[in-house]
């Protein structure tokens, strides 16, 4: 442990060299600082490193957008479920077992040929963890948070979604504790697909509202 402290002291001298790379490339200083902080908190009995491992494992391997895709696919094939989902998303999503932190109060927004919903959090990074996992870097980044509310069509175009002028765009800024999931339109030509096959088509981006669901050719 003293080894880490030495590294940390050394790192401090180079703090001003700190610059993130294009996708937030690591700063040696940050790596060392986090390691030193973890050691400090473990030594003080405030955190258990195995609990940290369990938390990481949960969000890296167990919770993710496949959960949300199952919700969407079920809504596409089961009209009664879709009705429950739009009326009380939290309860309907809980039917599939997806509950918990950052998903305690869910709202589902249905995209139609005339209304396109897209979700953002301008103030921080609010995101429905139980159905989508942790948010991607771009969702948490300055450009997405700054631009989606003022230029939603421009942002959507960059994602490859070019909406006709008569389509209404609704941007949902997650400013309180409600968490939003977009129910994308079911693509044409999927009438014979099973619920499982449909779930395979549903992407994270479509459930944020920056993409449409398409059928691969």
């Amino acid at each position, binding site marked *: 442990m003293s080894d880490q*402290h030495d590294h940390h002291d050394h790192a401090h001298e180079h703090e001003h060299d*700190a*610059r*993130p790379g*294009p*996708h*937030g490339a*690591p700063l040696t200083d*940050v*790596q060392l*600082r*986090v390691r030193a*902080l973890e*050691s*400090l*908190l*473990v*030594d*003080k*009995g*405030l*955190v*258990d490193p195995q*609990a*940290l491992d*369990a*938390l*990481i494992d*949960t*969000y*890296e391997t167990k919770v993710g957008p496949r959960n949300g895709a199952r919700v969407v696919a079920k809504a596409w094939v089961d009209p009664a479920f879709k009705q429950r989902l739009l009326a009380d998303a939290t309860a309907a999503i809980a039917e599939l077992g997806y*509950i*918990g*932190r950052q998903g*305690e*109060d869910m*709202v589902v927004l249905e995209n139609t040929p005339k209304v396109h919903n897209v979700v953002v959090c*301008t*103030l*921080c990074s609010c995101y429905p963890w139980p159905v989508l996992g942790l948010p991607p*870097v771009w969702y948490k*980044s*300055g*450009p997405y948070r*700054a*631009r989606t*509310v*003022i230029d939603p*069509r421009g942002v959507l175009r*960059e*994602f490859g979604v070019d909406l006709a002028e008569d389509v*209404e*765009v*609704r941007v*949902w*800024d997650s*400013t*309180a*504790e*409600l968490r939003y999931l977009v129910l994308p339109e079911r693509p044409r030509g999927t009438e014979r697909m099973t619920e499982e096959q449909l779930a395979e088509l549903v992407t994270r981006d479509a459930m944020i509202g920056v993409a449409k669901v398409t059928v691969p050719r």
Partner: protein
Amino acid sequence: MNGIHDLGGMHGLGPVEPEPNEPVFHHEWERRAFALNLATGFLGRWNIDMGRYAREHMPPAEYLATTYYEHWLYGLERLLVEKGLVTAGELQTMRPQGSGPVKALPPGGVPTALRNRRAARMDDHLAAPRFKAGDRVRTKNLNPTGHTRLPRYARDKVGVVDRDHGVFIFADAHAATGEKIPQHCYAVRFEGRELWGPHAGPRDAVYVDCFEPYLEPADDATGRRR
């Protein structure tokens, strides 16, 4: 607070850059920083609004020049000292001067801690709603130095209540004192042109979740616009 975190409507930050097949974490230190935030949050010394408020204090130039989990790290270090889990001296030297005042969450407690089903929502009977769906409302022109969830771009703007989400812990007070004040939270629809002027798309709208104290009626008792 009118901090750098309140980014809605800013220009000049560049294009959105999605990364194909992005991993959940890019580096080991991100994994640990993420988990440290959650694990210490479970100790009960602060709430989620205090957590957000702590990150909002990061100096603006530093906030823009650093990555997401560095914001979390900044907030965590600040809270650890502010809420008495670590002393300023310990944080500076990274050497422990004694045991912490509370016990760590054991690994076995993680699933239960994450299976939270009720966080910010309170019983609906705790507060009567002042507004209902369809009401025209104006957001107040508020500029508190404390925490608020009313973004700058949506202040002093007229919108229509889309729906009443029910009663929630009022974030502004929760961040300041931990007090759980029940307030209705409404999704309010603002037309793009109300927020951004005549150049906004005529069929663009932004929905903002607003706690009741942020709102006042847009029309007076006789139905005239205020």
